[in-house]
């Protein structure tokens, strides 16, 4: 143990007052001594053991004759006339802490002139003082360790934490607290229980921030407090050990047409703008809507979908907007929130928006403009915060002409239109999707795995899939359920597919031997086909070059050579 300057000063002043040898023991170790060559083991100092036994101070006033001196290793060379040991308080539990004083004959004589007893009392006070200084020293060290540990601990915590003392002055805080400007809020608000404010999270988006307070008391008196920040929006805890979910998880396909849509979805998902998904029935519009929600900043909030065509017109209004108690016959007691309200802080997906009745279209327009709704039979507006994604397979422009869709609503919805291509425009994906759904349904229905024969695959590739992916998925589910053969032959396919494609050759892939055309013809047509597929822009040309295994420069040379134009 290191001893502080205060202890050294106390010991020196005693030595100056009275010539003597002073030895400080602390937990069986000498921490200070004026002896030139002391014995360092506690058993070599019998006086310390005696003090432990008696649980009091020990005085040896007749050295070399005292029974304790018989055990002393230095009894032969000893010139001490008086030896004192004042144990510290903790000495009662274990020996080895206290002050040992050794006086020569001269010092003893001097003490006797003033009377020995007052001196002894005085020396005892000295020992107590030194003990106090030692304890203080130990406490300082302990406090220092705590402070360092707390600083380190705070640096590990992602939340902002501020510690305050009894004067409500900030004693410690961590880096997140500084970033969130917690000191600033606490200065203006000295005695908060808990309050909400706006903080900056890592996205630099202002999010509501909750500050929690814990006060500490001693003897009913305030002695300090701890403030810590908490995100007000509860986030779902990520389940342990489930690997991160991939982007656009359920969308399968490599066709350029689909890849273009996927990159567009990724790009716009993060914004708050309304999206209108257009495409034929069965192309997976809801899947895209869901992906938009998952990729958006609202992914922690609800995703609520409603099919406007599936609910009778008379019920759609109360479904969308909710109702107050007693607003119509059969209305539930206490009313019911509508799905727009349920989608608050999340995404609302309105499928088949083209089938929404004109009256409701007007009401929906109001919701978009005012950002508030009124329940059916309600009298006060409820403000809402939703992101709208709508979808339809109908031609809204024609409906506007015919007067069955409001033009103003169309413009409100058509902020970001995304056209999802039908399956026949992405033929490369048919085989992938067939494989995917075969795998999926064999697993889910716990059936032995099936594969398609090449002839059956050709038939399926040649079919034009008017019902798009929904039709394909249902067809595969049917095949897995119905057929027990491992290999699915053309004869096993549903009748409509078998019949329709009988005369047709597959749309996508030719099986004609390649060398029938001249090299030049092949190159020219091939380049045109590929450019049509991948696009005539630079990015498309780069991909065409990659497919052909030639450099971009060579592709440009050939385009020039064959005089290919868009």
């Amino acid at each position, binding site marked *: 143990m290191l001893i502080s300057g205060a202890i050294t000063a106390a010991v020196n002043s005693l030595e100056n007052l009275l010539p003597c040898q002073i030895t400080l023991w602390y937990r069986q170790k000498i921490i200070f001594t004026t002896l030139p060559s002391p014995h360092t083991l506690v058993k070599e100092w019998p006086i310390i053991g005696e003090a432990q036994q008696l649980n009091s101070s020990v005085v040896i006033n007749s050295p070399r004759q005292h029974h304790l001196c018989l055990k002393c290793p230095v009894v032969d060379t000893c010139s001490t006339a008086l030896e004192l040991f004042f144990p510290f308080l903790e000495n009662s539990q274990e020996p080895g802490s206290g002050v040992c004083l050794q006086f020569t004959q001269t010092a003893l004589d001097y003490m006797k002139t003033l009377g020995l007893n007052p001196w002894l009392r005085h020396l005892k006070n000295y020992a107590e003082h030194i003990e106090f200084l030692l304890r203080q020293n130990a406490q300082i060290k302990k406090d220092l360790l705590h402070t360092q540990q707390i600083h380190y601990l705070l640096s590990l915590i992602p939340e902002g934490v501020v510690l305050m003392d009894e004067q409500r002055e900030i004693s410690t805080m961590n880096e997140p607290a500084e970033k969130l400007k917690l000191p600033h809020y606490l200065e203006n608000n000295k005695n908060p229980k808990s309050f909400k404010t706006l903080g900056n999270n890592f996205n630099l988006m202002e999010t509501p921030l909750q500050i929690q307070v814990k006060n500490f008391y001693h003897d009913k008196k305030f002695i300090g407090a701890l403030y810590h920040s908490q995100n007000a929006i509860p986030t779902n805890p990520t389940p342990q050990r*489930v690997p991160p979910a991939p982007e656009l998880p359920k969308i399968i*396909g490599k066709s350029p047409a689909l890849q273009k849509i996927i990159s567009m979805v990724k790009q716009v998902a993060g914004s708050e703008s309304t999206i209108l998904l257009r495409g034929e029935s069965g192309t997976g519009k809801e899947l895209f809507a869901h992906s938009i929600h998952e990729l958006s900043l609202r992914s922690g909030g609800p995703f609520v979908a409603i099919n406007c065509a599936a609910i009778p017109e008379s019920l759609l209004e109360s479904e969308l907007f909710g109702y107050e108690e007693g607003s119509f016959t059969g209305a539930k007691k206490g009313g019911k929130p509508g799905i727009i309200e349920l989608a608050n802080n999340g995404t609302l997906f309105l499928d088949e928006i083209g089938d929404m009745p004109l009256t409701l279209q007007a009401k929906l327009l109001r919701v978009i403009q005012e950002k508030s709704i009124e329940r059916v039979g309600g009298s006060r507006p409820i403000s809402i915060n939703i992101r709208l994604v709508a979808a339809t397979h109908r031609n809204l422009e024609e409906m506007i002409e015919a007067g069955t869709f409001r033009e103003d609503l169309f413009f409100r919805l058509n902020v970001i239109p995304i056209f999802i291509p039908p399956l026949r425009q992405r033929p490369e994906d048919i085989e992938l999707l067939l494989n995917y759904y075969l795998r999926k349904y064999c697993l*889910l229905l716990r059936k032995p795995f099936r594969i398609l024969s090449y002839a059956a695959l050709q038939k399926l590739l040649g079919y034009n899939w008017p019902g798009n992916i929904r039709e394909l998925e249902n067809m595969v589910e049917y095949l897995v359920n119905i057929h027990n053969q*491992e290999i699915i032959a053309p004869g096993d396919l549903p009748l409509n597919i078998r019949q329709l494609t009988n005369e047709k050759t597959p749309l996508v892939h030719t099986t004609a031997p390649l060398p029938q055309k001249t090299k030049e013809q092949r190159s020219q047509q091939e380049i045109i086909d590929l450019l049509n597929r991948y696009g005539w822009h630079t990015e498309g040309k780069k991909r065409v070059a990659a497919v052909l295994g030639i450099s971009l420069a060579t592709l440009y040379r050939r385009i020039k050579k064959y005089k290919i134009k868009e």
Partner: protein
Amino acid sequence: MMRENFVDQDILPLTLGSILLGSGGGGNAFTLTTPLENDLKRNKQRIKVIPYHQLPDNYTVASVGLLGSPELMEENLPDGSEGKRAINLLEKAINRKVDALFALEAAGINILYPLMVAAKTGIPLVDGDGMGRAFPELHMTTFHIYGQPGTPSALANSEGKEDLFFHEDNFLFDLNIRKALVKYGGVGYFAGQAMTGREMKEFIVPGTLSFALEMGLALKNGPYEDTFQGLSHVTKNSIYGQAIELFIGSVVEIGNIATQKLKSVVLKGIKHYQADSFQVLIQNENVFAYRNDKMVAMVPDIISFLEYPSGKPINNNEIYNGMQIAVIGIPCPNMLRTTKALTVVGPASFGYKSSYEPLEMFHPDYYFGKNGV
């Protein structure tokens, strides 16, 4: 993206992808990468690839590849002429010209060697193979599973040895060709499984060369987290299933199980797997994987290693004690999962006396959960 050509820049990504498809085995494909790259660069050559849908029905196709020990091959690197001689021998035996070649095993060296032969002979290569991964035995192919004969087959080596095999039974053929390999010094190059384009299309595992290339392009983008994201995307859009991370840990034990043909690698978890242990059982390829003694993946699904945190694919003979690796699972194509296929390449063929459980069923939350794939 179906490719019609491979150029020198494609060889490295093809190598990386081929190691992943090797499921831990398949030999060190890197030994052939540089010679092949250099050949293509020097001759400004492109290897012609036929997407399997474009393969004419009347074509005669044959497989070509390496048989035996890849380690012994490294002592005397091939240049494609061995395969060329085997093809010539085969052509004489079947009395037809081979119009297109294919890789029997689209993994490791057996992707690179057929490329080398295609470059040497100018014969195009069909995009697809007969295993969809690496397997230890010659008859573990979709062609055998669905009833195609493996013979006639020709075997040759660089020292001029040549043999023809005419066995009708594929098992006997495998046995005899391996017996011959002893005379060949442990390494031979075969040409066989001759069939028509039409027959091939029926039972090929399609697009595996393009798939290896696409995975390889994703694998070039280390570190591991990016690599895995890329792999996820590529595998999802393929005839394979989406890749899943099975474990990340450091190797604590590599050992042999004397009574079985199996080798075992034990990992201790790092990152969020810290409290867990993992064990992979190996018979040439990684065949069974356990987390905390519970099975999490089994053959024929692919179990592969990536070096952590670099994300570089590695063979199971490259790992050492203390190395940090990530274990990835990829559901194999449906063709390897039918009842017929599982009798040949299923867990029972590797000593596991129980039925096959698909990778997806071990991890239903990942594949079918709320955010499932």
